[in-house]
Structures are given as structure tokens and as C-alpha cells.
């Protein structure tokens, strides 16, 4: 058993806690730095630009948007992708609450479903047009991934959707949603934390969020110091990991460790 394994087994907990604490402090330092800067220095992700573009187009032409929040639960990071979708939902409604065809949001999990309804309702409250509020615009369309895909399929086919925004946790069934969108001739923008779904989405749309990109949604959809700071923190540890792998790997190859 080599030194690294020894470390790995004996002090794993302490190492983990140390890592989390360092992550925390790096995040705060990044936040301070980001706040001093005049704008966020982050690369452009075309999918997010395309997303904004398609939303603007749909809003302008008065067509209906469908926002699918996936079947991830609020209690896991699978919900993280749904939360990215939720943050989008309220903005969509602020833009379209007076439209004849307000966006429709579907989710595959109880809490996310309720949060989506909360969000929609709050917009109507904000602008005092509660009579326009349709509770069915935020709906749970299935309670496990497969029925969710099936139920959402019908929403896409029924609601004369012009743009499909798939932002949540899916399985390979995401292909059926994208296909239903194509049958109805609508644009699909996809982002999922499930990597299989990403691979399937790859053949359907170029407007796809890959791997880690979905977790960056906060910084792109609604730029804020902490969101941008967390991206810089990820970068910091990304390079840390690369350095550790290269140096330790070289030492191993040289037989030092």
C-alpha cells in the first residue's frame, strides 16, 4: 500500500473537511475579487445566449414556451438543475404574464412542482392580475422519470409550444421530448445534469449544456457575485486537481511514491 493510499484511508474524513473549508474560503476570496471587478470575466456559453434569444423571439411572437424542470428532487443535486430551470421560470412569467399563451412548466417531483406553481403565482400577485392565473400552467406531469417523460410528451404535443426549454434531470427519454418538439416544429434548448441525457441531447440540438456547464446557469441566467465567484472557485480547484494529478503521477512513474 503506497503513501497516498495510506493517507487516503487514515485521514479521509479530515482531508474531506479540510477540502470543504478551503473551498469555502476560496469562494469568499473570489467573491471579494469579483466584487471589485467591473464585470464578470467568464467565457461565453453559446447555449445560454441562444436560450435568451429564443425566449425573446417566443415572447415577441406571442408563442407559448414550455419549460421542463425534469424529475430531479429538491433534496439532491439532481434538483440543482431543476433549480436552474426554476430561476428561469419566474423571469419568463414576468415577461409574459399578459400573453394569451403564458409559458407552461412541467416537473416530475412534488416539491419542484409546488415551487414552480409558487413562482408563477407570485408573479401574478406582484402585478395584481390574479384572475389571469391558471394553476395548470405549473404542473407535475409524472412522479417517476418514465411517466414524467410520457406526461410531458403530451404537454408538448397539446400546448402548441414554440420553444422547448428542457432544464432538469432526465434519463435517455429526453430524446422523446426533443422528438415531440420536432414533430411540432419547435426549437429545443436542453440542459441536464444527467450525462446520458446530455449524450442523447447531443444528436438533437447543438444548443446543449455539457457536463459542468449547467451548474453555472446562475452566473449566466442571473449574474451575481456569488455565482460568478463559485465559477472562479471551480476553476481554482480545477487547476489544483490538474497540478496534483500531474505532479503525483510523475512522482509515481519515477517510483518516488
Amino acid at each position, binding site marked *: 500500500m503506497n503513501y497516498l493510499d495510506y493517507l487516503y484511508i487514515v485521514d479521509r474524513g479530515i482531508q474531506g473537511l479540510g477540502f470543504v473549508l478551503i473551498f469555502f474560503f476560496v469562494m469568499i476570496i473570489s467573491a471579494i475579487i469579483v466584487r471589485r471587478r467591473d464585470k464578470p470575466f467568464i467565457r461565453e456559453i453559446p447555449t445560454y445566449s441562444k436560450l435568451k434569444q429564443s425566449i425573446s423571439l417566443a415572447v415577441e411572437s406571442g408563442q407559448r414556451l414550455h419549460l421542463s424542470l425534469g424529475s430531479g428532487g*429538491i*433534496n439532491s443535486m439532481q434538483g440543482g438543475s431543476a433549480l436552474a430551470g426554476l430561476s428561469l421560470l419566474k423571469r419568463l412569467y414576468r415577461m409574459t404574464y399578459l400573453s394569451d399563451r403564458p409559458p407552461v412548466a412541467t416537473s416530475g417531483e412534488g416539491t419542484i412542482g409546488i415551487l414552480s406553481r409558487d413562482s408563477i403565482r407570485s408573479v401574478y400577485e406582484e402585478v395584481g392580475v390574479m384572475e389571469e392565473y391558471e394553476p395548470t400552467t405549473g404542473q407535475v406531469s409524472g412522479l417517476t422519470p418514465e411517466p414524467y417523460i410520457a406526461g410531458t*410528451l403530451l404537454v408538448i404535443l397539446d400546448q402548441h409550444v414554440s420553444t422547448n426549454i428542457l432544464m432538469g434531470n432526465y434519463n435517455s427519454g429526453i430524446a422523446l421530448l426533443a422528438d415531440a418538439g420536432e414533430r411540432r416544429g419547435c426549437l429545443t434548448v436542453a440542459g441536464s445534469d444527467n450525462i446520458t441525457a446530455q449524450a442523447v441531447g447531443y444528436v438533437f440540438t447543438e444548443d446543449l449544456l*455539457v457536463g459542468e456547464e449547467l451548474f453555472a446557469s446562475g452566473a449566466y441566467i442571473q449574474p451575481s457575485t456569488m455565482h460568478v465567484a463559485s*465559477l472562479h472557485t471551480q476553476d481554482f480547484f480545477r487547476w489544483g486537481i490538474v497540478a496534483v494529478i500531474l505532479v503525483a*503521477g510523475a512522482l509515481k512513474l519515477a517510483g518516488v511514491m
Partner: protein
Amino acid sequence: MSVFDLNNLDLLGAILSFGLTLIILSFIFGDNLLFRFAIHVFVGVTAGYVAVMTWYNVLLPEIVVPLIGGSQAERFYSLLVLVLSSFLFMKAFPRLSGWGNPVVAYLVGVGTATVIGGAVLGTLFPQVLASINLFDIPGLFEKSSPVWMQISNAVVILVGTISVLIFFHFGARSNHGSHPERAAWISAVAWMGQIFISITFGVLFAGVYIASMTAFAERMTFSANFILLLFRP
């Protein structure tokens, strides 16, 4: 075996199963009423299952049973859970929705901590170690395949891991108000990362294709056998 050898329930099941298969497959030809019917049944039945499983596995043993026949402490705990659950239920009703937030916050807090811990100890540390140990020379000699091949494979895996990691790099610089862009050399490594991502996605897509083809073949052979069964004396 002929259709007459089946008991009524099995026969009904086979007919139902065959019918539903055809109805769903009819979606290939296009959307239709029967397809919608089947999908709604599917969603309803699964929701029913979810409700019953939750009752049998959680609500009954964790809340109902302790409340009825549990010790003082057990009763207290299940009562506490019951109260928290009722707050959660309020989320379903817009007027009372706010009462559910503390419970949702609790779930989010616990869930977040769990996945952070898992990501650190379950993926980050072991996978970084795995990447380092690719070059464990003594280990390489223990394996059957030639060492040079193992080392070259290790290099490919390492290059893949690192280039894909760098592909996701978010930081960028913008010169004089132009679009923020990554340094040229990072973009070059990212390009290589994209090659590995395309390959990984390709393998994943092929996997999805093979898996779904298994389902297709199973449904087709089932239908064929059922039809043969009908015409068998």
C-alpha cells in the same frame, strides 16, 4: 402451448399487454387518441404505486404504527414528524404555502450536505487518486497486458481527464470591451477535451441505442409470440 392453456387472468394480461404495446408503438405513425389514453393510464398507475409504496414503507411504519402502539419517545418522534409533514402538505395549498418553507429548507440543507460529502469522498478524492495511480509501475507489472500498452493507455486516460476538465474552464479575459475569451492555449487544450467528450458521448449514445433496442426486440418478439399463440390449435 395454445391460448386455451392460459387461465383467464393470464390471457387477459397477455391481451392487455399486447394491446398497450401496439397502442404505444402507434406513436411512431403519429399522435393519436389511444396513445394519449395509454399514457394517462401509465401516469395514473405509477402515481398510485408511488402513493401505496410510500404508505407501506414510510408513513405506516414511521408515523402510524408508533403513534398507535409505540413507547412515549416513539410517539413524540412520530408526532414531531407528523407536524413537519403537515407543514409540508401546506405547500400544496397556495394560501398556506409559506408554512412549508422551513421544512423544505431543512430538506435542502440535509440534501445539500449529503451530496457535497458524497462528491468529495465518493468521486473527487478517489477519482483523482485513480488518475494518479494509473502510473503505479509495480502495479503495471502485475497485470497481464504488456507494460508499454498499459502506460500508453494510462497516458490517453490522463490526457482525456485533464483536457476535459480544462474544457470546462470558465475564467476568461476581455480585451478592450470585446467578448471575454479564454487564453489561446487553454482553448487549444479545451479543443482536445472536446474530442474526448465527443467520444464519451458517442459511447454513451451507442449504449442508449443498444439498451433501447433490447426493449424494442423484447416487445416485438412478445407480440409475435402472442399472435402465433392465437393461431395455434
